[in-house]
């Protein structure tokens, strides 16, 4: 972890004025539910090619969901980063603290005129000032801790499948599903229909749950580049978070994905902000083969060819080695650490992934994650510093949000 340069600590740091406070509040609310820390990253540069920007990133404790929102300086009324040429300013804040500042959006809309955020390096505080009506000014001093860069390696361009639709369409698509549903399977069915189906843990067979499936025609999508039969299963709750933000901002949502086990990227874009959610997907093939067949009610797609439509049951086998996205975790002096086992739902049962590679074998590969106790269904995304030099991690400020790698 980088040491904060001494001269920076002596200065006030930078300040930004928030113009669209409501958007920021909404953005914060959409963070993955289990994210403990919020990483702020501010970059500034002399070169016009590399834009100054503010980023808010977070990852959940099981490292299966990552969110990143990038704000262009124009988003703000005033944006002043530290002296260009400095290393990017990076700090980690407890999510709860940050959210509590923007707690009530309705209230914010009504009473707050201006919001000013600045980093006070001297006291290691992120200062958020809300200038409200009637001369009221609320100042929140949030402790932050210096942290390593939180950066997931993902590239939408390498994903073979893309879906893009107005958030409203996707919002309507997830409406039939119960709010408590944890995971959903998204796939392409016959006739280029997009199918969403509730995913049930196979283990809990005594209590059979209702299965809900929603089928939407490809015509409702702005972009549909995916093979029939392809399907991924991901956490619906996290997706709903981004979706509700996208709906309120009236944006389109793009989904970039590959096969089961590979992370799926959900992206929204605006002229002033850019949001990405990267969610892990279930790595085993769907247990019920007939899942993505189009329901009988759908108008039958004209069967022009003699050959049968691609067999929907065969999902790509989980080829762990080639496709796992991983990064070297921040090592510093500590060496590689054991990662927490992923457990996305309480009733989760560990299982051995298909194929010849078990979790343990992955240990030997330096680029993959060290083995974790029981093999997980979901592949975790692993994050770490992309900067080579490792410095002593401890800063003077108290540790507020433990680095979740050490936690079970």
């Amino acid at each position: 972890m980088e040491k904060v340069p001494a001269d920076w600590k002596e200065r006030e740091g930078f300040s930004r004025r928030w113009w669209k406070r409501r958007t920021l509040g909404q953005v914060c609310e959409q963070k993955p539910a289990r994210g403990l820390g919020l990483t702020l990253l501010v970059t500034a540069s002399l070169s016009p090619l590399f834009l100054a920007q503010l980023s808010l990133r977070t990852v959940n404790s099981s490292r299966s969901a990552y969110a990143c929102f990038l704000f262009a300086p124009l988003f703000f009324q005033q944006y002043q980063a530290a002296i260009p040429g400095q290393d990017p300013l990076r700090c980690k804040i407890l999510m709860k603290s940050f959210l509590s500042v923007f707690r009530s959006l309705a209230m914010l809309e009504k009473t707050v005129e201006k919001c000013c955020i600045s980093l006070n390096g001297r006291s290691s505080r992120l200062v958020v000032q809300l200038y409200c009506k009637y001369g009221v000014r609320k100042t929140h001093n949030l402790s932050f801790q210096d942290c390593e860069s939180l950066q997931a390696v993902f590239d939408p361009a390498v994903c073979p499948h893309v879906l893009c639709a107005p958030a409203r369409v996707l919002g309507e698509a997830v409406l039939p599903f119960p709010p408590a549903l944890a995971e959903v399977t998204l796939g392409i069915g016959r006739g280029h229909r997009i199918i969403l189906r509730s995913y049930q843990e196979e283990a809990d067979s005594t209590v059979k749950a209702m299965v809900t499936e929603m089928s939407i025609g490809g015509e409702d999508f702005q972009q549909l580049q995916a093979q029939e039969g392809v399907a991924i299963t991901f956490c619906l709750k996290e997706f709903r978070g981004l979706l509700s933000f996208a709906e309120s901002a009236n944006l389109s949502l793009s989904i970039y994905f590959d096969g089961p086990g590979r992370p799926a990227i959900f992206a929204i874009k605006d002229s002033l902000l850019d949001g990405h959610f990267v969610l892990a997907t279930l790595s085993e093939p769907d247990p019920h083969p007939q899942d993505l067949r189009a329901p009988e009610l759908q108008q039958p797609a004209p069967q022009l060819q003699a050959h049968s439509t691609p067999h929907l049951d065969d999902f790509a086998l989980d080829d762990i080695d080639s496709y796992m996205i991983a990064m070297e975790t921040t090592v510093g002096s500590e060496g590689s650490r054991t990662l927490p086992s992923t457990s996305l739902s309480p009733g989760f049962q560990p299982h051995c992934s298909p194929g010849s590679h078990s979790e343990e074998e992955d240990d030997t590969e330096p680029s993959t994650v060290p083995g974790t106790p029981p093999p997980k269904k979901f592949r975790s995304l692993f994050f770490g510093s992309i900067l080579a030099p490792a410095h002593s991690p401890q800063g003077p400020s108290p540790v507020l949000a433990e680095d979740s790698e050490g936690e079970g």
Partner: protein
Amino acid sequence: MKFRAKLVDAACLNNFTRVSNMIAKLAKTCTLRISPDKLNFILSDKVANGGVSMWCELEQENFFSEFQMEGVSAENNAIYLELTSENLSRALKTAQNARVLKIKLTNKHFPCLTVSIELLSVSSSSRVVTHDIPVKVIPRKLWKDLQEPTVPDADVSIYLPVLKTMKSIVEKMKNISNHLIIEANLNGELNLKIETELVCVTTHFKDLGNPPLASENASQDRNSEQMAEVHIDIRKLLQFLAGQQVNPTKATCSKFAF
């Protein structure tokens, strides 16, 4: 065993949804009986402490534009299914903008009632929501417990006041006592009473009207002013009143002496 039905009318769908919501509020699991002319929702809660049992009958042709069923056998042309009532009401909730709703009995690894909804859509393509509700087929030998309850001749039968009014009164009374005393007579008078050590509260309803009695003898013997009284668990009554979503033309309360 086969069953398929199709519902296309919005008002029918609305009513069917309300019935299902009412059932869901009363009990976790219910029995659905399918016969050529009717659909019945049956709840039989044989709890010693005053359980709720319910028999609800719907004329199939009032709801469905198409209805086909084939029972267990020709002599026993009915199907009895046990399902989680909330599942059905949740499935129907998503059918608010439905063009067509189809229900059928299917076997997808286990018996299911599949509710298939084609939604109205602004775009050219159709949107289809499918719900597979797991059901348990109830064997023939248990059918006898699920027959229509015979209603014995009542001592007093009275038409109830507007259920909403009754519900709000009973709700307030719930805070004071666990038991409610209902008194009614053949003069159209109904009292809802709670009695505790400290306080006694009674709400009087007048001019409610009485349905015609089944047997002549009972009405002759009884003084029309004489109140018949029952004590019931207030929470059960409230559960019933809270569940009422279908506005009844008439709701009758009858008292029996056992």
